[in-house]
């Protein structure tokens, strides 16, 4: 267990980086760069992270969520149509650069099979 925290580990704890960005004005895409193949196995587990989970996290239609599992890079990539049109009155993240946070904060069910990445903070 990570000694720096007393909460259950999150997906972000097992990742080198979790990031999000626009993929054109109408889509958002995000990637979890997992620290190794054991951490990748957590993120790539379809019973843990799937279209329905993403739809629930982001309040979007599960039928429009695309998930790419890329073992060669230890990456799981997720894309879906932007729920809010870019730069419209309701858009608070023009580049969609902060929308990875709900994904990174996703609680990983125990027992985990990999050690979380050590972090300074």
């Amino acid at each position, binding site marked *: 267990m990570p000694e720096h925290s007393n909460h259950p580990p999150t997906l972000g704890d097992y990742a080198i980086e979790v990031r999000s960005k626009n*993929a054109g004005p*109408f889509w958002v895409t995000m990637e979890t760069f997992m620290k190794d193949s054991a951490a990748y196995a957590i993120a790539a587990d379809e019973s843990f992270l799937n279209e329905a989970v993403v739809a629930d996290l*982001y309040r979007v239609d599960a039928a429009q969520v695309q998930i790419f599992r890329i073992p*060669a890079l230890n990456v799981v990539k997720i*894309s879906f149509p932007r729920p809010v049109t870019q*730069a*419209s009155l309701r858009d608070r993240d*023009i580049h969609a650069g902060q929308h990875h*946070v709900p994904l990174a904060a996703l609680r990983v069910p125990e027992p985990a099979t990999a050690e979380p990445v050590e972090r300074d903070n």
Partner: protein
Amino acid sequence: MPPSTEAVARVGVLAPSGMLGAGFDPETIERGLALDPDVIAIDGGSTDSGPHYLGAAVAKTTAAAVRRDLRILIKAAATADIPLIVGSCGTSGTDSGVDWVAGIAEQIMAEEGLDLKIARIYSEQEAAFLKEELDAGRVHPLAPHGPLQPETLESCTHIVGMMGHEPFVEAIRAGAQVILAGRATDTALAAAVPMMLGMPGGPAWHAAKVVECGGQCTTDPRAGGVFATIDHNGFVIEPLAAANACTPLSVAAHMLYETANPYRMREPAGTLDVSDATYTALDERRVRVEGSRFEPAEQHTIKLEGAQVTGYETVSFTGIRDPYITANIDRWAALLRLIVTDRVGQTLGLTDDEYGLDIRLYGHNAILEDIDPDSTPPREVGVMLVVNAPSQATATAIAKVANPLMLHLPLPEMEYLPSFAFATSPAETPRGAAYEFVLNHVVDVDSATSMFRTEYSREVSRA
């Protein structure tokens, strides 16, 4: 001299940075020239910063930054006697954006005593032409959009079509040395000369995708651009800066960046498929890529981008540190909305469907709102009010009606009148017209160049 169009063994592409005006170390360009490039290719724009730049036809980059980069690149292209390609000029690739960069280029050439032939390739589209294409069933939506309505075309202040590599090839064959294009796919700029010189589509388009953001595919994206050497079986990618490196991971991971699908990417002429691509380290800073494929499409298509005015905006910003209110900030914000809406009705006679209000609670949940996983009470909250109304005067009037509330609004149970911390005086900032991208559609075309118009700086001889 335009490059020979005879088949060659390899083609070098120098990609100085991800965007003209972003800056680069001139020494990296010197290093790139030593690697024997056949073209210098750089992007001038993107939709990533929002629809304002297309809607208003203004550039995101400042002229001084474009002039600085362009001067170095024009001199490098002249020295090496190779073409310089700039795509999506002026951020959005409007006709005025092309003319803006061309004006800067002409000024630089006059100052430097150079006389290179300039091609301006325009990509703006007339709504009337597109309506004819729509009527003929030649305009199709891309996901997640539905069919295009003709009124949507009429509503756009500017519409551009995204060109592939073909207009660039035509201009270079006509002798152009500096090619300044309107909206183009990010990859078309770098793929044009390799395609012209007979390289296969797989390596040419994959290399172009890898270099399109400059150093983004390296281990240190801040260290400058990259160089791609394309041949008949694959390509080699290396950074321009000696201390920087490309690794199989950094190159493969770049296919993830800003793409919805990391394996397949549509271009006007077909689809790049990198599902079977292999990434091999040649040494500690160079990577060889093989196995990429390009599948020609049955129908050549040109993607459209268009922006329309959605209204005029005024912004107001105040800060709250009062611990009682920050602890009850959602309830306070709901009260603010209720009372502002009521006062706007009383004073301006507007109902809430005649304008838009967005109340953003920075420090609390402004960015993610109800999907934020953290509900910890904030220490301080920045309250941004964004008003969208049919005119600038109305938007500012609504923000002014909200002003006393953003200064003093208490919660009903409070026994004192708080005063909040406005960030500026006056508190209201008019933002001008607000825009939205409204097109996500493609047009079927019989010719890859017919929707684009090329003008040359002077008479050029056909190669």
